[in-house]
């Protein structure tokens, strides 16, 4: 079952692509065709994308905490996906540049047969790559967790449509159809093994639920392949997809050229109306010459339909549009994870209200929820309770609420109003209250209550803003605080009043 392994697939594709790159460079040198050389460098960029994905996969397997990274390296795959997406966007940009160049200076394809041959070979390799990674790109969900929890079911349904290519563009649908019919064989052959994998996974989850599952019969990476790995694979898939489109364009262009183009023969006068060069004056001159010698009028050749020369850039533009359209969701998703946003399926407000309505909970603040990578969601909260025994009663319930939302790694800090700090405040305690307000991650929305003095309220506002130099700037900044933040403030205000 080596093809199931992510790393094996990446290595295989890497080897193939690199080999093809070398072959293309050699052929371009032999035929001295510049177009083939630039196409070969597209393959090289593909190689780089695969290397990035491979490095990310290698890193992300170390899920243990280390001295340098207390979370392990699970996030490397999300980073790999982002790097690939940005790389792809930059690549689209350069392809756009080349296409515009071709518009201003169209040139014909020399030796279309060779180009067709190499193009078809490239297309085959790219289709193979699509087949290898399509498994991940489109609905590869037979693979994900076989958990019996309801929330994970919800999560699956949410992320189900996600990796599929977006509908809409006619071209995109056409290409999707092509790739899906071609990869049918691949997925059916993989289908059997997927089911087997699913069975084994069910056994394993039973083991886990029952006791201390100490051993994993399969490779750990099979089991733990979740949406972060899918993101990474999607990045690679999009690169290969872009390359495949490029090969399709090359082949189509070369075929049409071979079929329809009337080239200028090497001997005899020829007028090429399409190429706008300074040679044209010479050409018109020679044409005038020939008209003067009326006997040779018929021998003036005109090179061939001009629109063919513009076909290449137009197709390239279409390809760029398709690529950008399909890359944008990947870019957005990985960026949102890296920005520490709350995962889409969780509603912070409702979670907050659920926690607050628990008996024994007086206030909730500093509630933070973020996604480390894939399905690992982390939450922290400060819960204010009247005394420690009440806290012991609600602690389990709090964890259950988080668990139901799919947040399994939580750190709950209880704060007791009866001990120490002034009532109603209950915020993070002492050394870091005043001096370090600016260094706290988010000091603020939660504690600027109306009861505070002007000084501390301005301090709390200053916590939320960037460095402040003068008091007057502080006030202007307070005006520019977005209204969403004030909403958070009023929530907390209500809380404090009720606790008093």
């Amino acid at each position: 079952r080596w093809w199931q392994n992510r790393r094996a697939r990446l290595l295989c594709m890497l080897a193939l692509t690199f080999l093809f790159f070398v072959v293309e460079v050699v052929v371009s040198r032999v035929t001295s065709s510049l177009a083939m050389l630039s196409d070969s460098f597209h393959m090289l960029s593909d190689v780089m994308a695969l290397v990035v994905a491979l490095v990310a996969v290698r890193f992300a397997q170390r899920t243990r905490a280390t001295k340098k990274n207390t979370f392990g390296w699970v996030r490397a795959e999300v980073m790999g996906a982002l790097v690939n997406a940005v790389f792809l966007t930059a690549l689209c940009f350069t392809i756009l540049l080349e296409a515009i160049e071709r518009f201003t200076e169209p040139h014909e394809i020399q030796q279309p047969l060779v180009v067709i041959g190499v193009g078809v070979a490239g297309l085959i390799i790219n289709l193979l790559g699509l087949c290898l990674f399509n498994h991940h790109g489109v609905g590869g969900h037979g693979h994900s967790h076989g958990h019996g929890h309801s929330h994970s079911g919800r999560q699956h349904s949410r992320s189900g449509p996600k990796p599929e290519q977006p509908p809409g563009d006619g071209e995109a649908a056409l290409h999707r159809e092509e790739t899906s019919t071609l990869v049918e064989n691949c997925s059916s052959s993989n289908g059997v093994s997927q089911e087997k994998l699913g069975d084994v996974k069910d056994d394993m989850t039973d083991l886990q639920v029952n006791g201390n599952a100490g051993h994993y019969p399969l490779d750990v990476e099979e089991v733990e392949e979740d949406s972060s790995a899918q993101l990474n694979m999607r990045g690679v898939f999009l690169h290969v997809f872009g390359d495949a489109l490029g090969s399709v364009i090359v082949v189509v262009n070369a075929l049409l050229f071979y079929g329809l183009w009337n080239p200028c023969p090497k001997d005899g006068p020829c007028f090429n109306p399409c190429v706008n060069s300074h040679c044209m004056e010479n050409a018109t001159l020679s044409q005038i010459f020939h008209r003067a010698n009326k006997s040779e009028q018929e021998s003036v050749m005109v090179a061939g339909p001009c629109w063919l020369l513009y076909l290449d850039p137009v197709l390239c533009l279409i390809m760029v549009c398709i690529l950008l359209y399909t890359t944008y969701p990947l870019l957005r998703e990985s960026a949102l994870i890296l920005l520490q946003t709350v995962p889409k399926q969780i509603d912070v407000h409702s979670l907050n209200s659920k926690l607050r309505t628990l008996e024994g909970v007086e206030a909730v603040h500093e509630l933070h929820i973020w996604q480390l990578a894939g399905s690992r969601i982390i939450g922290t909260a400060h819960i204010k309770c009247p005394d420690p025994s009440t806290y012991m009663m609600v602690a389990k319930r709090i964890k259950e609420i988080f668990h139901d939302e799919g947040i399994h790694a939580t750190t709950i800090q209880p704060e007791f109003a009866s001990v120490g700090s002034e009532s109603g405040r209950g915020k993070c305690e002492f050394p870091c209250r005043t001096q370090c307000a600016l260094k706290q991650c988010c000091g603020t929305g939660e504690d600027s209550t109306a009861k505070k003095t002007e000084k501390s309220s301005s301090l709390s506002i200053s916590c939320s803003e960037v460095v402040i130099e003068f008091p007057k700037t502080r006030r202007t900044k307070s005006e520019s605080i977005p209204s969403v933040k004030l909403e958070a403030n009023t929530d907390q205000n209500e809380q404090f009043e009720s606790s008093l």
Partner: protein
Amino acid sequence: MGRYSGRSSRLIFMCVVSLVLFAVEISVAYVGNSLSLASDAFAVLSHLISMIIGLFGVRISRIRWHKTNTFGFIRADVLGAFGNSVFATALMFSIFVEAIKRFINPQKTEKALLVLIVGIAGLCFNLFNYVIFMDCCYCRSHQGDTETGDSPNDQKSPEEGPQKKKEKKSEALNIRGVLLHVMGDALGSVVVVVTATIFHVLPLGNAPCNWQCYIDPSLTIIMVVIILSSAFPLIKETSIILLQMVPKGVNMQLLTDRLARVPGVSSLHEVHVWELAGGKNIATLHIKCQTATDYQDAAYKIRKVFHEAGIHSVTIQPEYIDHKTSQLLCSSPCISKACDSQLCCSQQKPPLTKTNGYTEKNDSFLSTPHKDNGSSKNDVEIPIEYPLAENSTKNVKNCGVSDDKPQLSSTRL
């Protein structure tokens, strides 16, 4: 106006100027049929894109709380810098490819005078750009440091000075990303000017290419190397933040040592330290204590330890010692063990555990099985981690070790 709005309005101004310049260059390139002008126009466009990314980062990072992001979008700056540097790297890669093509197929620069003029115009624009950004971000930051001394706010302690610099550093990260593009552009213009000058002074006419044709690609390759060498440190710095790594000034070993020595703490685990953006460090940990008063005292001291290490947002979860559960493992990871794979750091694999006062003993005990698994270890891992619990017997063994601890800690109290 505050410094922040100055920056974004400058960015907007530069965006508009770039857009105008791009439009002018592309139309002139089409009319005059010059290839190099077209590529220069696209350089300006890429510049524009990078500034848009930078602007986006600056604008969004002002949002401090949003329903989709409990931390606010402070990290957008860092992400913008990362995106910009990866974009610059990719562009450098394609420029490198073009240079290689030029080596294989050398071409003369035609109409050297026109190219020279446009090159000088591009260079001026880039220098202007650079000066504006430098003035906006770096010069002001120096002024800001001197003004900290006479800041009217008495509450701020002198340690605010370096802290302010840290916050500026995160916005500066974003601007550094944009400056990377500016620098790339400027160097490109320098290369164009030098090549065009040489071709203007020593025109080749119809002669075949001599050494002059190879100047352009060689200078371009030097430029690529220079820019890549300044892009990589930026990528590294932003990756440290984005990968949730331990921030640079924090020594985990030392920190956990100090934390373990706080009285009242029997053991601690799930210690996580990471940087949100711009010097704001966040930590979470679970501690095991005997009683609630233990926890209260210990909590204060723990915060002090973190404060001295530069970490100011700490969330501490107390777990009370229960003789039934294993001492060392987390007693409340989630409500059931089935959630293990969704925990941030798997509990099946041993957590970063530290116990109070018995580390040496545990070390010597645990390091022997550790050596058995030497092949799976990396050097970066803290040596106190005991090996992967390959079977349940090892877990039992660890529990056995920890059984004598409750008695010892109770006598201590």
